[in-house]
């Protein structure tokens, strides 16, 4: 699928604490500086030391949307990695390992076992991380790259430390580089150059940057994997971007603090995962009732309860749909990838500012903790900002007191002008109790069914015509395909790769990827799916949350499903195999097996 066909996946396996992140960063930087696209997925556990971590970095001169199906080079930082993963390596692949500490197992024919005598190469350097740098040097040589490609990123990686540290790493990497040149077969293909250097980010970086670009001035959070990267980006960039960043005592406090800051006039955002989101649910209803615009991100992980904190799932759709008591409209959007997440946040802020309501984002571990290349020219850092009916200039009356300003004025479009507190003349009270147009409670002694109905309808009316402002999903691929794969959120990219694989076998499939869940383009979706031959919904959960939601909203029942709920993300062949199995016959659900046990 790539122009020169270069598509190469490197995996690094070891225990937590063995320093897998650093070689991962170095390789990512080398690839993006060459202008190659990359996609990295780190399979890890909720542990600071020990366990098993397996980082896959896939690079290509064409865009890559998943970590792929197979490995071309494996670096074993411990015996465990060798024992678990060697059997996955095919003819022509390379396996690098520290031969002082690790014994190779029985490899398939044609696998290049590449022992690295680390002690000998590093003058018996006692630093436990030295084997990583030796391996990186060797990889760079096997890829046919110049040593300078590596030394430059080493200088960047360790540049904040003293020069001695940079020099030591460069020397050790050089030893690995030279050793590989004299002892191992190169990978046998040219590592190409892309058109221009790219940038690298994680999905959490993208979410945070989307907020910063949208004008977020207040961000707060309680740490929770896999959402914490958003907090880290915000904290690191707070001063430069003028964003107030706070770590709060719990997620209830987080959501309420966001509401306070948003009501005072800031664009305010927070991110959490499913458990924290559960604590925020009452606040989501409060934002709807107070009519305060805010953005809340749920980075889904495998649940329920504490679940599997470091594994991915699309299991919070129904939680988002039903978050908070009562019956009120909300916005829910599930971006397809990091770049889409970056672009979606400013769009969502414009919508919540306009509609004065909560906006929910469903990311997941796959997007948020994945590392991806991105073309910096694709990043619109100054997006359009529309604050809707926000009033920031003085009014002449006494606000609610003399009725000259009514916070919840029953306007034709349901949207009432929103005065920022502190503005002279706009004094009013907002309330989570049901209230009249002036903000005065009708919930207690003033209860009035006519007013209650009016306010419910006013809040609902804000969403009339909203679908016209939101792009409808489009069918990707040939309209008359044999199979139509329906997805939501993060699975769009891996499905596209599966479709490309199927095409090689002569199976024509297309995809309908859904991003906006509420409001849902039900009519447009139904019109497309009714014309489809065989429809298969692909999602990362057990019960088919989206498939059931789609049926509930549209009456459309998909023919079959591919579902994965073991914590690991889909690989392209999982979906392709599922389509092969489901396209004919009576099986309704395919659950792929996860081969790489991490």
């Amino acid at each position, binding site marked *: 699928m790539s122009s020169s066909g270069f598509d190469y996946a490197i995996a690094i396996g070891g225990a937590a604490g063995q320093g897998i992140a650093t070689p991962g960063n170095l390789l990512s930087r080398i690839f993006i*500086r060459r202008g190659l696209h990359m996609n990295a997925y780190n399979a890890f556990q909720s542990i600071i030391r020990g366990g098993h971590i397996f980082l896959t970095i896939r690079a290509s001169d064409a865009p890559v949307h998943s970590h792929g199906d197979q490995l071309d080079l494996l670096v074993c930082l411990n015996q465990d990695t060798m024992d678990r993963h060697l059997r996955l390596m095919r003819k022509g692949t390379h396996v690098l390992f520290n031969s002082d500490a690790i014994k190779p197992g029985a490899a398939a024919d044609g696998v290049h076992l590449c022992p690295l005598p680390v002690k000998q190469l590093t003058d018996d350097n006692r630093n436990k991380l030295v084997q990583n740098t030796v391996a990186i040097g060797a990889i760079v040589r096997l890829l046919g790259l110049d040593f300078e490609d590596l030394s430059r990123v080493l200088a960047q990686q360790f540049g904040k430390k003293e020069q001695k540290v940079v020099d030591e790493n460069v020397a050790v990497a050089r030893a690995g580089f030279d050793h590989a040149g004299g002892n191992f077969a190169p990978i046998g293909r040219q590592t190409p150059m892309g058109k221009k*250097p790219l*940038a690298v*980010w994680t999905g959490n970086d993208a979410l945070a*940057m989307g907020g*910063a670009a*949208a*004008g977020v*001035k*207040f961000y*707060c959070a309680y740490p929770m994997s896999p959402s914490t990267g958003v907090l880290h980006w915000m904290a690191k*960039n*707070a*001063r*430069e*971007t*003028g964003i*107030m960043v706070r770590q*709060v005592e719990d997620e209830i*406090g987080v959501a*309420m*603090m966001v*509401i*306070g*800051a*948003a*009501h*005072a*006039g800031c664009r*305010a955002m927070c991110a959490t995962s499913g458990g924290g989101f559960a604590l925020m649910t009452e606040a989501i209803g*409060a934002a709807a009732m*107070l009519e305060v615009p805010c953005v809340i991100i749920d980075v889904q992980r495998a649940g329920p309860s504490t679940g599997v904190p470091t594994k991915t799932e699309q299991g919070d759709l129904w939680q988002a749909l039903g978050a908070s008591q009562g019956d009120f409209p909300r916005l829910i959007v599930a971006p397809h990838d990091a770049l889409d997440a970056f672009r979606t946040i400013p769009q969502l802020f414009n919508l919540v500012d306009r509609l004065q309501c909560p906006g929910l984002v469903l990311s997941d571990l796959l997007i948020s903790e994945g590392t991806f290349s*991105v073309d*910096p020219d694709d990043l619109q*850092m*100054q*997006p359009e*900002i529309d*604050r809707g009916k926000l009033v*920031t200039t*003085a009014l002449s009356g006494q*606000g*609610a*007191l003399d009725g000259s300003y009514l916070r919840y004025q029953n306007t034709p479009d349901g949207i009432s002008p929103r005065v*920022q*507190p*502190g503005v*002279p*003349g*706009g*004094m*009013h*009270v*907002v*309330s*989570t109790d049901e209230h009249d147009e002036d903000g*005065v*409670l009708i919930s*207690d*002694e003033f209860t009035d069914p006519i007013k209650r109905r009016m306010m419910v309808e006013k809040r609902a009316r804000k969403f009339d015509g909203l679908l016209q402002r939101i792009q409808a999903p489009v069918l990707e691929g040939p309209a008359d395909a044999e199979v139509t794969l329906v997805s939501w959120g993060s699975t769009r990219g891996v499905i596209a790769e599966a479709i490309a694989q199927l095409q090689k076998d002569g199976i024509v499939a297309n995809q309908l990827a859904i991003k906006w869940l509420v409001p849902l383009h039900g009519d447009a979706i139904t019109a497309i799916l009714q014309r489809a031959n065989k429809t298969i919904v692909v999602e990362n959960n057990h019960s088919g949350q989206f498939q059931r939601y789609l049926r509930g909203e549209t009456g459309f029942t998909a023919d079959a499903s591919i579902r994965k709920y073991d914590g690991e993300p889909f690989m392209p062949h999982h979906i392709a195999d599922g389509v092969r199995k489901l396209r004919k016959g009576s099986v309704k659900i395919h659950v792929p097996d996860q081969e790489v046990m991490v």
Partner: protein
Amino acid sequence: MTTTERVPLTAKDFKGRINPDWCPGCGDFGVLAALQKALAELGLQPHQVLTVSGIGCSSNLPGFIHSYGMHTLHGRSLPVATGAKLANHELTVIATGGDGDGYGIGGNHLTHIARRNVDLTYVVMNNQIYGLTTGQVSPTSRHGMKTKSTPFGNVETPINPITSAIMNGATFVARGFSADGKQLCELMQAAIQHRGFSLIDVFSPCVTFNHDNGYDFFKPRLKKLEDQGHDPKDWKAACEKAMAWGDEIWTGLFFQRQAPTLGDLEPVLAEGGPLARRPLGLAKEASRRILERMM
């Protein structure tokens, strides 16, 4: 902003759109009156004030004041008030509520706002009972008290909001009595002027559901710290006085110290005015540096 054109105001100028719906004789009337007077005497204008409450009888207070107000969720006034204050530090932010709201369901937030020293004032109308739900035990109900949820007497020990707040780092901790409007108004003015987090716990009797701790209970027992030459800088003496619960119960300013507020320590707030009024989005130069670090 027209804040320079100040017209002297009176408590009446802070009277809200509607009259309070509290029971006749409720202590909260006195608290509302003292707050309206304090705001007027401090020369504040209604648009400069944001009152934030949770849920409960006393949390209806923002609805009865002419200012900006937020009537939020049960127990959550403090994080909302924190967010609002940090977003617009020029606002005078006053959180109000009851003992169940602040010391029960919202207790976690009180602990943390105290240590953060957010520059706002928290007035707790402490009636030692859940009134709006018609009379259940509260975190400040006395040991042995019979309520609808403790018909055989409360077996739990009440929280001491004064010592708790001091221990958690609050920089202004006081106690008032709703029937002593003069002292309460003075405490409120001092609290609003204090830079940092100030807590005023106010005995505000519930005449309908708490028959143990009404005006008759408090009047003969209450003594004023200011009459005894108490030094508010002395936290040990403050705690000792706050622990007294018998023939003598103390009101007044228990503890005060000067410390930087959360806002003072936030470089983001150092210049440029309130966040809520700053231009949105990223400066070109900041964008360039962010992208550069990604390359």
